[in-house]
């Protein structure tokens, strides 16, 4: 019996699949990395660095969200909170203390992670849509707070001297590093025992509890790791902007970005956010003059993908690659049986 291909993080290759998924992914990853590094300063004009930075941070944030929302199945609408906290931690520390950059950035990741853990312990007891709505509530509540908090400048926000921030090339390099780190971390987590349990919770939380899975702990840990990465991104964003204020730092747009990219690219795949981010940033750049249209088109694509290609663009591309490969070889080479390992 032909085993249907499933795209959910486990990605069991069945008989008939020719192009081993890891080969294709690995090839693309190497290409992508090479492109990122080669595009480094010296080869690109400064504006290219800005676009590259935007692309990289989008990827990192989406990968992080995807851990919770895709692999974890918890549709979080709180993540803009972590971006904001990361940004504000960096800005506040740079303004009010003499700390050097490394601990500033580190704390900008750790603080959101801690907040995520605390919040998660509370709201991740809720299931599905109730959790989503609660997460939205928390994010907007904190934004409302920050708008009024004098310590961080309320609506005027904070700004620090440009000399405190690293230059564009360094920033770019940091972004590359963070993106690589987040992608590798996510892949490692997903392929681990922790990852299998996380996906079990996503598939059937009650059945998972029935075999002893510590549901809350695992969900909260994934939420925390996700927030760590997103907080670090927030820090980089603050360093790039030098001046921040609550409306944009905590904007729901960040969450929208993460969700759209992950869904477009492919939930429950680590390649998905990369594909999705490239797509979104490309459209944004092409329609630079017409911001509203770019959002419109992306939203339309979102609906199209949900309707026609529900697993996302990456699985779609992969299937397409397989079809082409097979046709090219004219006859399917039966693949060897697979071992019980996950291929995320």
């Amino acid at each position, binding site marked *: 019996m032909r085993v249907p291909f499933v795209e959910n993080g486990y990605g069991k290759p069945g008989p008939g699949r020719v192009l081993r998924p890891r080969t294709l992914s690995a090839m693309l990853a190497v290409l992508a990395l090479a492109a990122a590094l080669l595009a480094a300063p010296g080869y690109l004009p400064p504006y290219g660095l800005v676009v590259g930075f935007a692309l990289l941070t989008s990827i990192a944030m989406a990968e992080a969200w995807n851990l919770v929302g895709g692999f974890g199945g918890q549709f979080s609408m709180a993540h803009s909170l972590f971006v904001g906290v990361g940004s504000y931690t960096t800005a506040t520390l740079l303004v009010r203390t003499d700390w050097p950059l490394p601990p500033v950035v580190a704390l900008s990741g750790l603080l959101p992670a801690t907040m995520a853990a605390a919040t998660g312990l509370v709201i991740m007891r809720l299931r599905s849509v109730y959790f989503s709505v609660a997460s939205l509530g928390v994010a907007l509540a904190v934004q409302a707070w920050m708008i009024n908090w004098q310590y961080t400048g309320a609506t005027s926000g904070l700004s620090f001297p440009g000399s405190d921030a690293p230059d564009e090339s360094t920033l770019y390099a940091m972004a590359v590093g963070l993106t690589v780190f987040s992608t590798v971390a996510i892949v490692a987590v997903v392929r681990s025992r922790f990852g299998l349990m996380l996906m079990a919770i996503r598939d059937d939380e009650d059945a998972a509890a029935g075999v002893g899975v510590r549901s809350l702990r695992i969900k909260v840990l994934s939420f925390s790791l996700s927030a760590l990465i997103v907080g670090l991104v927030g820090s980089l964003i603050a360093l790039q902007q030098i001046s921040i204020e609550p409306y944009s730092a905590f904007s729901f747009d960040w969450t929208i970005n993460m969700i759209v990219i992950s869904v477009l690219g492919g939930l429950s795949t680590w390649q998905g956010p990369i594909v999705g981010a490239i797509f979104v940033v490309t459209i944004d750049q092409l329609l630079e003059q017409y911001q509203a249209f770019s959002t419109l088109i992306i*939203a339309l694509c979102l609906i199209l993908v949900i309707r026609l290609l529900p697993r996302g663009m990456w699985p779609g591309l992969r299937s397409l690659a397989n079809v082409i490969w097979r046709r090219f070889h004219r006859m399917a080479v039966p693949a060897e049986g697979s071992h019980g390992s996950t291929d995320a």
Partner: protein
Amino acid sequence: MPAATLGVVIDGVLVGGLYALVSIGLTLVFGVMRLVNLAHGELIVGGAYLAIVSVGLLHWNPFLALLVVAPLLAAIAYPLQRWLLNPLLPAGLEAPLVATFGLSLIAQTLFLLLFSGNPRSLQVSYAVTGITVFGHPVRTVFLIGGLGGGALIVATYLLVSATPFGRSLRAAAEDPEAAATVGINVPHVYALTLALSAALASVAGVMIAIAFSVTPTTGLSWLLRGFTVIVLGGMRSIWGTLAGGILIGLLEESVAAAIGPTYQDLIVFSALVVVLLLRPQGLFGGGHR
């Protein structure tokens, strides 16, 4: 009762009626289809914009304009549910959620393109006039909004509990397959539900356009308020929506009276989180999930 407290209560109940009206569409859609309509705020704002345009063109009274706006919005909602969202419902919880998310984005962008980002509202005489209720000044529009909202909730309840259509609705909500086998056209019923939800949302939109103002992005905060109301009242209970609305209204007015309006949003959102934790099925909900 001291005058100030009475004032808070009256204001709270009236604005609560309006909030209930804002939320009833969410309750219906969730109750029947288990769909969380993230574009609900845009239905309200869309209704507001449509009303603004109609009033501008026809120079009618806004409530008269509703006779045009509500069916129009319902007519837009019907095919969206029938041909976009219905096919996604079997796929689980995420797909329809993300689809409504996408619809919300599209709507916001359209609003921005068509109406720009400036706040718009409906200018009517009674937007700023008021009457006195029990010695407390009340804006006429809130009186209309609160009482009208309450009346519409009651009408909705009667529709759902006492009419054959309402029975079909409840049957489709409980067991769509069994409902189909007794002759109920379930996809059609679902689409009618969203259409009804849109019509109710348009009424809320008109009130909001009169009493406050709308921008392309105000939908989100109305969505959140709507959620708070239905979570408090029980996500599938019509009476619960009314009660939840009034409670949120009272909460807001009390907070505003006590410490000023700055932290209103924060309090409301915190209330949402607290309720979700302590009693996720709401005050009137049966078994949740």
